[in-house]
């Protein structure tokens, strides 16, 4: 597809990009409005940011969200990587496919069903709704995406690499840490990042399993937005946008570096 782009195509793309980004910049723009509404810009102010940083409750919620995201991404990456290694070592193709089928159930399931079924699960198991139920659910729905990110890297790895390591006298632990893990590092990073964004972005599942005392950012924004507009949310979204852009740049560089690495990179 290497044809030249026409003016019409450029206009079309321009409109798409405009529509995609306009709401985000609209939010950020009005976070500086002294008027207190999201219409009619009255004057420049940083009051909403000040209010945001003095709102300890909201800051604790932000902290909760970040802690949940980091912990769940870390734990799900560990479980997912070992799961993927296990799947690769399965001898029969049929077993592999059925495990992968089960793996993908949570990826294609709508959030509402994941949330509702986890709510039943936690109630039956007697786990109190709060931090741990949210953490467990986030780990649970992040594992399959980690497996999907890591497995292709494992599959493209030549089995003779492992045999060679064994022949040279490497222990299983050495094979794992010196051969397998370095080879699949780009996949592990990609999986970790995906798990992180899944967790930060999740609303529906958390909404079901969060109970009364504990809240994450999404759930909090939902209850604030149902009450109407308050410009601290705008200020918060401006900050979140900044953090997202930084994460994207980091991710872009990691994937670029991964692409350039001889061993771990794309080899066809």
């Amino acid at each position, binding site marked *: 597809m290497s044809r030249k782009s026409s003016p019409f195509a450029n206009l079309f793309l321009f409109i798409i990009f405009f529509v995609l980004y306009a709401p985000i910049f609209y939010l950020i723009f009005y976070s500086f409005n002294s008027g207190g509404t999201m219409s009619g810009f009255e004057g420049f102010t940083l009051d909403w940011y000040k209010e945001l940083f003095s709102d300890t409750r909201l800051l604790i919620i932000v902290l909760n969200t970040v802690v949940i995201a980091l912990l769940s991404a870390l734990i799900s990456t560990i479980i997912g990587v070992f*799961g993927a290694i296990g799947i690769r070592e399965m001898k029969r193709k049929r077993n592999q496919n059925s495990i992968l089928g089960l793996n993908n159930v949570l990826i294609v399931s709508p959030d509402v069903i994941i949330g509702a079924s986890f709510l039943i699960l936690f109630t039956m198991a007697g786990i109190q709704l709060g931090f741990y139920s949210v953490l467990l659910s986030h780990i649970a729905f992040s594992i399959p995406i980690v497996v999907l990110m890591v497995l292709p890297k494992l599959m493209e790895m030549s089995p003779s690499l492992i045999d060679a390591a064994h022949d040279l006298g490497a222990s299983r632990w050495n094979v794992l840490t010196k051969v397998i893990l370095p080879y699949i590092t780009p996949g592990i990073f990609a999986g970790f990042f995906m798990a992180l964004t899944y967790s930060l972005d999740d609303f529906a599942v958390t909404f079901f399993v969060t109970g009364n005392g504990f809240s994450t950012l999404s759930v909090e924004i939902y209850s604030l937005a149902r009450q109407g507009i308050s410009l601290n949310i705008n200020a918060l979204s401006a900050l979140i946008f900044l953090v997202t852009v930084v994460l994207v740049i980091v991710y872009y560089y990691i994937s670029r570096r991964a692409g350039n690495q001889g061993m771990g990179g794309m080899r066809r």
Partner: protein
Amino acid sequence: MENKVTRNLYMIPYALWIIFFVIAPILLVVYYSFLDIEGNFSLVNYQNFFTSTYLQMTLSSFWYAFLITAISLLVAYPTALFLTRTKHKQLWLLLIIVPSWINLLLKAYAFIGIFGTYGAANNFLEFLGIGSQQILFTDFSFVFVSVYIFIPFMILPIFNALESLNPTLLDAANDLGASKWTTFRRVVFPLTIDGVKSGCQVVFIPALSLFMLTRLIAGNRVITLGTAIEQHFLVTQDWGMGSTIAVFLIIIMFVIISLTGIRKRGA
């Protein structure tokens, strides 16, 4: 022998995850769907589901999901096509994906402001001389915001399909005298149908089960299957009925996946 033991050790946490968080939840949902509101075993939920209220809701939920998917596809396909023709296309693609990383709730919240009575959309309508309209809490706003949210997920698989298209095929079609439109209809589109299918799959299923947009943007005017499940679980506490709807949603999900299932051709 040793191989097998270590493999099993690797697999223990992952296997536990499959048992407790994949299989058990589905079984529990099915189990609860057979319980009435007092917790007795009965088929009353299934009887209720086949009354006109729930069937109508299912139909309208389908209709909205179809509308959202169709519009997303109509916008996403040309976008993906034009993107593949730009310089630095990976960078542009990344810029398409960035908004999907912004929290969903914040985007919905932005539209509450934009579509509000004094918001930007109404200012624009005033400027055009149409005068301000009720935009928030209508079907239009619901479909618009849903399409807005799903569009990156539709563009991505189509873009990948277009990228893996062999460009010499286009030259061949051109040499054989096919017009641009014929080339698109007979060559490009059929070869990228897998991308279209997986795009539709990742939009249609979530669109069936949206629930927070129906509350924030559609003001409870639209009730999807997702909204009904949320309502039963968290408001009326009738978990049995909620589970029954969830069972049907799971069935619908499997039907759609098998319909749009991607069979890799060739290698």
